[in-house]
Structure formats: C-alpha cells, structure tokens
C-alpha cells in the first residue's frame, strides 16, 4: 500500500543491524548538509545509490521514480532562488519586462545548482534509511536513544493503525467508484468528505475495541515487543568509519577553501 514500506521489506540489507544503518544515515546527512562543495554531494549521492540499488536490490526504475517525488518543490524553490526582479540586469541572464528585468547573477545560479545537488544527495541518505530499515526497527533505535516511552508507543500504534485505516479507506473508495461516486467534481468532493468522516468514525470505534483487546491481554501501560538483535559486523563498522572520516575530510577541505 505504501511503496517505500513494501520495497523496504524486500531489501537485501534489511537484516543488517539497525543502529548501524541509522548512525550511517545520520552522520552522512549531517556531513552532507555541512559541506560546501559539490564533490561531497556527488560522492554521497553515488555511494547511497550504489548501496540502496546494487547492494539492497531495489529496482532502479522504482528508485528513480522515488527521486522525482521532491522534484516539484526543488524546481519551484530553486527558480525562486535564482531569478530576481530588478531594475538593473545582472550578469548571468536578463529578460526585459518593461522597465524591469527578470534576471540572475552567475553566483546565484551556481549556488542554486549546488543546493540542488546537496538536497538530492541528502534525499538519497533519507532513502537509504527508509528503503533498508523497517519502521519498527527504527523505533527500536529511537528507544535506545532515550526518546520518551510515550512517544515511541504512540509511534508504534500509529504505524500499525496507518495500515488498518488505509485498508478501510481504499475499500470505501472502491465502493464509491463502483457506485459512480466520482462522476463529476461535485460528487468527488462529496465522496471524499463522506469517506473521510466514515473513516474517522470507524477509527474512533475501532480504537475502543482495540484498547479492550489489549487490556484483555494484560496491557498495563507498556507495549512489549520482541526485537531480534543482530550484532554489527566489524568489517562493516570499519568501512562506515573510514567513509565518514573521508567525508569529514572533504567537508573541512571545502570550508578551508
């Protein structure tokens, strides 16, 4: 139902220690954001694509499609960064609009392109985590990081409920479609509203029965979940440490320049 979640369960890297993957993602993200050079972004991008697609076995076509999700935001906001409205033409390009110019400078165009590269590299970091690590394992890592128990418990329940609700919603949508519920714009709006309110009513009722079921199984304020510990391999840890040090070196170099 959720593409990323489904792909994640198929990944070959799924059974590698979750903390290891989490730490790798967070460190790489931080270094990628902190860096000022396009080279760091390129390295991060290529390594992540290699790890997720070649090592993890995620189909490349799927991966490329996922990379396009933030494209709309990227294009719109980078245009806003590069283009200025000014009375004086700048050096990169200028389109006259009466007395004003739609114009940009070479430095801002370069900065915009660099930002695009950096953002895409950061997106591949995020995808590495979400395409190799199952949500329940991410929650296990968060627990080790001492995120409050209530939040973890809420996240766990919400993650479970998302699929319950999506199933209900898609059943309602199918039956609405088969009854001409999407005939024109007005019915579409009315159907969506009806679907959402039915969904809320059902979910509220369901939450009541779910609590009763949990209490019947001795729920006393803490959800206990069996988690399998898979120790991290030393070789992998050394590789990650070496890679992060290399990135750190590149970041420091990009600052010095």
């Amino acid at each position, binding site marked *: 139902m959720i593409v990323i979640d489904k792909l994640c369960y198929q990944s070959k890297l799924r059974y590698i220690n979750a903390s290891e993957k989490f730490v790798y993602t967070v460190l790489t993200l931080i270094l990628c954001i902190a860096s000022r050079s396009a080279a760091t972004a390129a390295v991060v991008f290529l390594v992540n694509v290699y790890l997720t697609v070649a090592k993890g076995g995620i189909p490349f076509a799927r991966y490329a499609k996922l990379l396009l999700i933030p494209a709309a935001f990227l294009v719109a906001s980078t245009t806003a960064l590069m283009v200025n409205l000014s009375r004086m033409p700048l050096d990169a390009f200028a389109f006259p609009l009466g007395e004003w110019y739609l114009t940009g400078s070479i430095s801002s165009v370069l900065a915009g392109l660099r930002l695009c590269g950096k953002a895409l590299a*950061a997106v591949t970091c995020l995808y590495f985590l979400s395409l190799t690590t199952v949500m329940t394992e991410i929650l296990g890592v968060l627990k080790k990081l001492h995120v409050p128990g*209530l939040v973890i418990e809420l996240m766990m329940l919400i993650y479970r409920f998302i699929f319950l609700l999506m199933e209900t919603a898609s059943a309602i949508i199918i039956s609405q479609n088969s009854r001409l519920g999407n005939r024109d714009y007005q019915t579409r709006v009315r159907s969506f509203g009806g679907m959402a309110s039915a969904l809320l009513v059902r979910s509220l009722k369901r939450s009541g029965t779910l609590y009763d079921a949990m209490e019947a199984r001795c729920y006393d304020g803490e959800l206990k979940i069996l988690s399998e510990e898979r120790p991290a391999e030393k070789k992998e840890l050394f590789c990650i440490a070496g890679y992060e040090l290399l990135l750190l070196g590149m970041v420091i170099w990009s600052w010095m320049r």
Partner: protein
Amino acid sequence: MKKQEKILVKASVVIALLFAVAPTVNAMHIMEGYLPAGYCVAWGLICLPFLAAGFISLKNKIKTNRKNLTLIAMSGAFIFVISSLKIPSVTGSCSHMTGTGLGAILFGPASVSVLGIIVLVFQAVLLAHGGLTTLGANTFSMAVAGPIIAFGIYRLCGKLNVNRRVSIFLAVFLGDIFTYCVTSVQLALAYPSEVGGTAASAVKFLGVFAPTQLPLAVIEGILTVVIVIGLETYAVPELRNIGFLRGKEAE
C-alpha cells in the same frame, strides 16, 4: 451570462490551468537537505517548548483515562492517512491535504503538535514528503503555527457567533495559508535574495508557491467542512467523546 458568472468561470479556468501545470501538489514540506545546518537546528529548538507542552497535555489526557492512548494514536494515524490520500482537484492531477487543520479543530492544537511531528516523521520516511534534517522547520510551520492559527480562528468565530461551517472553512483555509507563509519566510531567512534581501526573497517564494498552495487551501477548507458535516450527522457521541462537541452545541 451575468458579469459575476463570467468572473467565476474565468477564475475556475485559471485554477484548472494552474493545477495542470503542477503535476503533484503536496502541502508545502521543505525537502530533505534544503536548509543549511544552522537553520535546521534553530527551527528544531524553536519547536521544543511547543512539543513539551503537547507532550505534557497528552500525558495528562492518558493519565485521566488510559483508553485515550489508542484514541490519540488513531487520531494520529487518521491525520497521516488523510494527508496521504489523493484529494479531488480540478483537472485530476494529484494533490494532498495537510490534515493538521482538521486535527487542530477536532483534537486541539496541543495534541496536534506531538501528533504532527510523528506524522511528519512517517511522511518523511514512508512517503518521502519532507525530510529528517528539515523536520524542525516543517514541524514549526505545519504542526505548530498552522494548527494554532486554525484553532484560534475557530474559537474566535465561535465567540463571535459566526456560522459554524463558515468558521471551520475560515479556520482551515487561513491555517493553510499561514503554514504556506511561514514556510516561505523560513526559506527566505535561509536564502536571502541578492537584490532586496530577506523581504524580497520571501515575496519570491510566496509568489512561486502561490499557484499551488492557494487553490489547495481553498479545497482543503471545503473538504474539511464536508467532513465535519458528515461527522455531525453520523457521529455525535464519538465527537462528544473527543471533546469536539460540547453538550449545548450538539443539540
């Protein structure tokens, strides 16, 4: 055709065209990696007091009745699912609502701040909307600023005896608009324009996102009113349970 009708037709054509230009319209999440490191940390810190307040309020709610735990979790899942479903837009292109406006009206802004950050984490990891480094900025605009405005306007309209449906529309619409303005300002603060500084940059970001965000806010407002009408028809006891309808209003 009368003059007014002509204007309406023209406006709808413009909205349709704008939707045709933008293939996917999400609520305005700042994408992963788009903000400099300093701003990521700063927005995260700004969110902290709101999150702490929300956390304490949730904890108290659960203390008074343990059953509220599953209820709150269900509400969070509801906000996520609503925001992940395609909503009807004029030309059939796909767009999504924020869902936090509805959440704020139903559950109050304090719970929505914590639920909002959880939903944003799930949106980042499962749907690739938004990101982990921009979580702080997105939480501030979508889970704190928007819901507070929406809830405030809803309450204000209640005090002023405005028709409830109108007040829900206004609350959600203005909450969305406020979220969009806050996000533009966040982007502008991080990337001031070389001609005119932060203010000019904010205007540019507002302008670039206006074609997608303004119709979205209108549609989300209308949909929320339709949803609440449905709820008022079928689910009065449940609504009273979550504290949305007080005794008098329900009658």
